[in-house]
Structure formats: structure tokens, C-alpha cells
């Protein structure tokens, strides 16, 4: 797959002297949904702002489809639609007017049919003649998405698109995102909701304190870092783990009625069969067992904690 956005050695030092990004290197692939995951203040918005031309980089460079964002800013920006994190909308313009304005701003000829389609896809068609000030927060958010899509961008940035958005609307939004991806649009989203990244993204990048900690295919990430846990509910309480079972690094629960075994799904063998055999040899019987897989959230928390 080819690269559509290439960030190299990008740093950002704000006027206050604060280093929000530190030598970021990142490639976004054409047509993928890329989730940028990171705690508050990690630098997600700063990174997006630089790529979109809202903030100046302090060091390093970014190219969009081969166009440098500074030297060939027109070509670079024409490809990008941006939905910023904060709700910034006009008030007294109508939905139709503000979305058409965005299209003009990006130098595209009028195309009412396209605007109509965008508004319909985002369930805004009934509101097309309403003033923006009369809309709910969720609708305003959709208006901002409509503005970003008005000029048919090949790349869409969604900065925490579902923050403060109800479940119904969130589902609708993801539908739109999937349709766009199917049409070949590259999507970069940032989110706090790890389930979202897990559900939507093809690849995931984790950013923390202005540094990219990891970039990985979602499936591989889950596999690589995904650990499973086997929990055995014992038939009889035990006081200690027999020495014979030491190699398994088992954890005994407080009450002495549960044994917990962590294993790696990516490993050659999980060790479960031999564990069960050794348990029987040690005379420990269990009444039930369950397994669980760590979510992206666990992975994320452990990654961010390490740094």
C-alpha cells in the first residue's frame, strides 16, 4: 500500500516553550482508517493542526500525497477535509450556506447535488435552511463534518469526532466513515474511546507526551500484546500454590479459591494442557474455568504507563 501522508522528524514547540511534539515520524497509508490514540495532552490535536496548516511546525516536514505542506500548501490542503475537536460554527448562516461556503473556499466549482448527498448522508437534509444557531450540539458536529466533506477530500481528519455525541449519532457517523473508506478516502481519527479504535481502525498509532509510542495493524497489535487469562474456580480452598506449579507463575486469589494463569496467545504453546495435568497431579480440582482476552484498553494503559 502506498503512503499518502508522510510525517518526518516533526517537532512542535509552542510559544510558551512547551514541546508538544518531539521528532514524530509517521506514515499514513492510502485508503486506511488510522486511529491516533493517546491521553489528553498527548499532542494529537497539535499534530493534526500542523498537517492541516493551522499551526506551524517548529522542525521537520510533512508531505501529503507528495506535496510538502508548506511549499505546496495549495495542493496539499486541497486534498484534506478537517473536522476539528472543538465545535466551531457560524451562527446566523444556514446549513446549506455554510456547507456551500466551505466548498467554495476549497476552490471547487458549485455542485448542489454533492452537497445534497452529503447533507442527506448526515441526516441534515431537513435542516438545510435552518440557521446553525438553532441546531443541537450533535447536529452542529454533523454540520462540521458536512463542511469537511463538501469539497470531496481524499483525506479526512476527525479529531475526537464522537466526544459528547450520543450513541445513535455515533453509529450513524461510523457508517458514514465506513462508506467514505469504501470510496477510497483515507481517514485519520483521534479518539479517547478505545472501543472505537478497536471497532473502526485498520491501524492504530499510540501517542504519548508528544512521541509516537507504537504504530501497528490493529489485528497484529491485539495479537502481539493481547494476553489471555485463564481463571480456575477451585473446588476447595487452598492456602498456597504447590511448588510443583511454580513454573506457571500462577496467582492465587485472596480467598484462596481462584487460580489465575496468564498466557500468550501468540506463543507456540499456551501451556494449558500441561497446567491442567500438573494440577490434577497436585490434587487440585476445579469446579469451573473461564478465559478472558485483554482489550485494547488494557494494552493502551500498559503502554502509556511504561513510558
Amino acid at each position: 500500500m502506498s503512503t499518502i501522508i508522510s510525517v518526518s522528524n516533526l517537532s512542535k514547540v509552542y510559544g510558551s516553550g512547551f514541546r508538544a511534539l518531539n521528532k514524530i515520524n509517521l506514515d499514513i497509508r492510502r485508503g486506511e482508517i488510522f486511529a491516533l490514540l493517546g491521553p489528553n495532552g498527548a499532542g494529537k490535536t497539535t499534530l493534526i493542526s500542523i498537517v492541516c496548516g493551522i499551526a506551524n511546525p517548529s522542525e521537520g516536514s510533512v508531505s501529503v500525497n507528495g506535496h510538502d505542506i508548506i511549499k505546496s500548501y495549495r495542493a496539499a490542503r486541497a486534498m484534506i477535509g478537517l473536522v476539528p475537536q472543538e465545535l466551531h460554527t457560524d451562527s446566523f448562516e444556514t446549513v446549506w450556506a455554510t456547507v456551500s461556503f466551505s466548498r467554495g473556499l476549497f476552490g471547487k466549482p458549485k455542485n448542489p447535488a454533492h452537497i445534497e448527498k452529503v447533507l442527506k448522508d448526515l441526516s441534515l437534509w431537513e435542516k438545510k435552511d435552518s440557521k446553525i444557531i438553532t441546531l443541537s450540539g450533535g447536529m452542529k458536529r454533523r454540520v462540521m463534518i458536512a463542511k469537511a466533506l463538501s469539497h470531496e477530500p481524499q483525506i479526512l481528519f476527525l479529531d475526537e469526532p464522537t466526544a459528547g455525541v450520543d450513541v445513535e449519532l455515533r453509529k450513524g457517523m461510523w457508517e458514514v466513515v465506513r462508506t467514505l473508506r469504501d470510496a477510497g478516502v483515507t481517514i485519520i481519527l483521534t479518539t479517547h474511546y478505545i472501543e472505537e479504535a478497536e471497532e473502526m481502525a485498520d491501524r492504530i498509532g499510540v501517542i504519548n507526551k508528544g512521541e509516537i509510542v507504537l504504530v501497528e495493524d490493529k489485528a497484529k497489535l491485539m495479537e502481539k500484546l493481547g494476553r489471555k487469562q485463564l481463571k480456575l474456580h477451585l473446588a476447595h480452598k487452598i492456602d498456597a500454590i504447590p511448588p510443583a506449579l511454580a513454573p506457571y507463575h500462577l496467582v492465587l486469589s485472596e480467598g484462596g479459591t481462584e487460580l489465575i494463569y496468564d498466557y500468550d496467545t501468540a506463543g507456540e504453546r499456551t501451556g494449558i494442557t500441561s497446567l491442567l495435568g500438573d494440577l490434577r497431579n497436585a490434587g487440585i480440582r476445579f469446579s469451573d474455568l473461564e478465559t478472558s482476552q485483554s482489550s485494547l484498553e488494557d494494552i493502551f494503559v500498559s503502554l502509556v504507563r511504561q513510558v
Partner: protein
Amino acid sequence: MNYRAIRAIYLFEMARTWRTLLQSIVSPVVSTSLYFVVFGAAIGSRITEVEGVSYGTFIVPGLVMLSVLTQSIANASFGIYFPKFVGTIYEILSAPISYFEIIIGYVGAAATKSIILGLIIMATAGLFVPLHINHPIWMLTFLVLTAVTFSLFGFIIGIWADGFEKLQMIPMLVVTPLTFLGGSFYSVNMLPSGWRTITLLNPVVYLISGFRWSFYGIADVGVGLSLGMTLGFLATCLAIVWWIFRTGYRLKH
């Protein structure tokens, strides 16, 4: 050139004008009419003529300039300050558009509005006093130059301002006094010589003088000087705007 973007910004700004028509057009017309009643009638009954022109007629160019100056600054400063204030500036900054094009859109719309306003005020004045314009082309030239220059100046204020007080401060504390003292209501030649020298430091004097010359052929200072000062001020504003955009001053982090 991204003509469509210029057009989009220009029409967006003009739409704002039509939406706030009452405030944009009607209120300056009403206040101008009041100036006529108060200054024209009250003072005009004492000063009958200034340099061969009746007082009421004499003050028309100054009144037009007064409105064009203040409205150009108000329109342009608000036009760019507002998107900064509500955050919608993100879209302008992320669009494939040069700073030059942004300026043409915003300053063009602000200047258009104040030119229309100037013409309306002239028409209003025509209802009160007889008007004649000796050099219509020069009149329009001065009108357009002043509108553009002060819209640029307003644009700079709008970018510099980080609060509504600052937005009002320069127009109120600097521009309005300079305009009132710049010979809107009197000829500089009527002042005692000490005052006259001080008054000649006021740039607005040159604008009003040149503009009045295009009406009646009378001027406080040479027309060439008026034109030169106007162009000089325009060049200064352009230089400041160029610097703002080059550095991203108060627009980009």
C-alpha cells in the same frame, strides 16, 4: 489564484452586511443626517461660507470621509476578528488559499460596503444641500483608496485584537478624534497658525482635503500631497499585513 475562495469569502462577508442591513447602512445615514441638522443648521447660520462654498455644502466630503473611515475599520476589523473569536478561522487557515486571497476577500468586502455607504451618504446629503462634484473620477479614486486603506487598517486591528475592548479602542481613541480634528467640519486655514501646524501632523487632514478638492476644487493642502499621503498609508498597511502573514502573528501558533 483561488478565485472561488475569494468569491466565497467576499460573498460571505457581504451576506453578513445584508443581514445586518439596519446597523450597517441605516444607522450611519441617520447619524449623518443628524450632523447636518446640528452642524449644518446651527453652525451654518453663523458661518455662511467657507472659501466660497456654503457651510452645509462644505462639510459634505468631510462627513462622507468620517463615515467611510470609521465604517471601513469597523467592518474589516470585525470581519476577521469574529472568526478568530468563535474559532471558525480554522477553516480559512486550512483551506488552499493564500494570504493575499484572504485579504482580497475580507478587505474587498469591507471596502465595498463602505464605498456603498459613502455614496448613500452623499445622496442623503444631496437632499439637504446642493452638491456638485468637479472631478468625479478623482472623487471615486479618493473614495476607493480611502476605503481600501482603512479596511486594511481595520483588518490589522482585527488580527491584533484579542478582546472586544481592543477592537473598539483604536477606532474610538485614535481614529474618531483624528477625523473630527482632521478638518471634517472646518477648513484648516480657519485655524490659528499654531494649531494649523499641529493639525498638519494629522494624516486624516490629507484624506479629507484631497476628497474635498475633488468636489469643489478647494483644498487645505496640495492634491498631490493628499494622494501621496493616502498611498503612503496604504503602503504602510500592506507592509504590516505582509509581515503578519509571513510570521503568522496572532493567527497561527
